[in-house]
């Protein structure tokens, strides 16, 4: 099994969710995070004093999938989150050692 983690622009979350649904992903975890890559941050002005804000709001999407599904899930996320502008984010895949459904105790692919 693989953990697919994506950092995306917050306003693309609904598109990503829909796109994951289309490729058969049944569940996901999202969290509001802050960060920056090449996009860097923005400036804010309060009573004439300028502040540079490096960490900008992003959304992290996490999905655990079967080994064979990882590639198409990555594609689904990247396709839906892409705006062709700087700051679209990243998606990466890491191996998962085990997974257990807490309610039933099912393990492995059955727990997905």
């Amino acid at each position, binding site marked *: 099994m693989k953990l697919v983690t994506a950092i995306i622009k917050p306003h693309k979350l609904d598109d990503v969710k829909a796109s994951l649904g289309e490729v058969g992903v049944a569940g996901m975890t999202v969290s509001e995070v802050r960060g920056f890559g090449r996009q860097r941050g923005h400036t*804010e*002005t*309060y*009573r*004439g004093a*300028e*502040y540079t804000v490096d960490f900008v709001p992003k959304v992290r999407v996490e999905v655990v999938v079967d080994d064979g599904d990882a590639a198409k899930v990555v594609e689904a996320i990247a396709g839906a989150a892409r705006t062709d502008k700087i700051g679209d984010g990243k998606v990466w895949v890491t191996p998962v050692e085990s997974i257990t459904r807490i309610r039933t105790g099912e393990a492995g692919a059955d727990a997905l």
Partner: protein
Amino acid sequence: MDYQGDHAWILTSSALVLFMTPGLAFFYGGMVRSKNMLGMLMQNFFSMGLISVIWGVVGFSLAFGNFGDGGLLGDFEFAWMRDLFDPSSGARPALDMIYQATFAIITPALITGAIADRMRFSAWVWFLGLWSILVYSPVAHWVFGGGWMAKMGALDFAGGAVVHINAGAAALAAVIILGKRKGWPKTAMPPHMLPWTLLGAGILWFGWFGFNAGSAGLANGQAVQAFVNTNMAAAAAMLGWLAVERLKDGHATTLGAASGAVAGLVAITPCAGFVSGMSPFYIGAAAGVICYLAIQLKFKLQYDDSLDVVGVHLVGGLVGSLLLGFFADDVVNALGQYAAVDGVFTGGGWGLFKDQAVASFATFGYSFAMSAIILLGLKAVLPKGIRVTEDEEDQGLDLTQHAEVSYALGDMGSMARE
């Protein structure tokens, strides 16, 4: 019973002005970091508790006792709430006492914006009480109580000097003695919730009608004039501030709109019942522009006036008090109980301006010096001093001074009863 209308208006105004203090708390609270929100609210809110008691027991009498003596301080004729409920006047002294109590409450509360995020609460309690007795009551007597400034001929309709120059001078002394916030100005300390600030500014604007129009003392034409002038000055100042901000920084900000309106309300305070026609627009617009420029000074001069009490209240109060020397109009003055007098632009010569300058700088000097003495005294006497420790400053005033947090929004905290 011909006082019924007047009583109704002044009672209403008292409630309006009292509401300004929580409004001010939220105006300031939105501008501090979230870990200091309750600390800011409490410094303001507490003033309604402590100052109400002090004012009833002795403060009102020190300010308004021996009314019209042309001197420096009242006496004890109304101390311990004595002789307030005179039946023949419909308890007029009690009405004056409660109306003026709301001014006594908000004036020291204005200082909290300058000392944000770093004063020990117990030190604030001591400072608040001592300042009210040693600074506010005497200065209020000088003008509102018929003291030496009133006798000289200086005008202050609702507190340009008594409230704003007075609090602004104290704020300047306080930031010099207390020192900068840890990390200022390198560390960014942006506002944590500007919607609170806009809400607070709206409450201040609303309450200011009681502050200025109530200062007519009667439900008369001068109250109407003051009411209208108050609104128009706030409006013009908002536009003035936003225009210069848009030119200089590229954006019209919500904080600028709120700050500009407050600067205009400050500047029209001494003038409200004494000017007419287009004057409130000129006074307001001048305040909006000048106060915006004044708040940039703290970075050059390196004093951490955290929320710009000096730039808005001291400078705005000076703008209003001095411009009154130009714009005062005896036609409006005559609507009320004051001696009719004109300013420079209305054919009255420089006499009033000179009196306004003397009153403004005397208020500044006395308040600055006495506030410094009180703070240095407290610093020497209080076992823990007047400032929180560096560690407490890092953790914030909410937790270290009040053992509470402002925003417990999530369910994730693990909380157990001791």
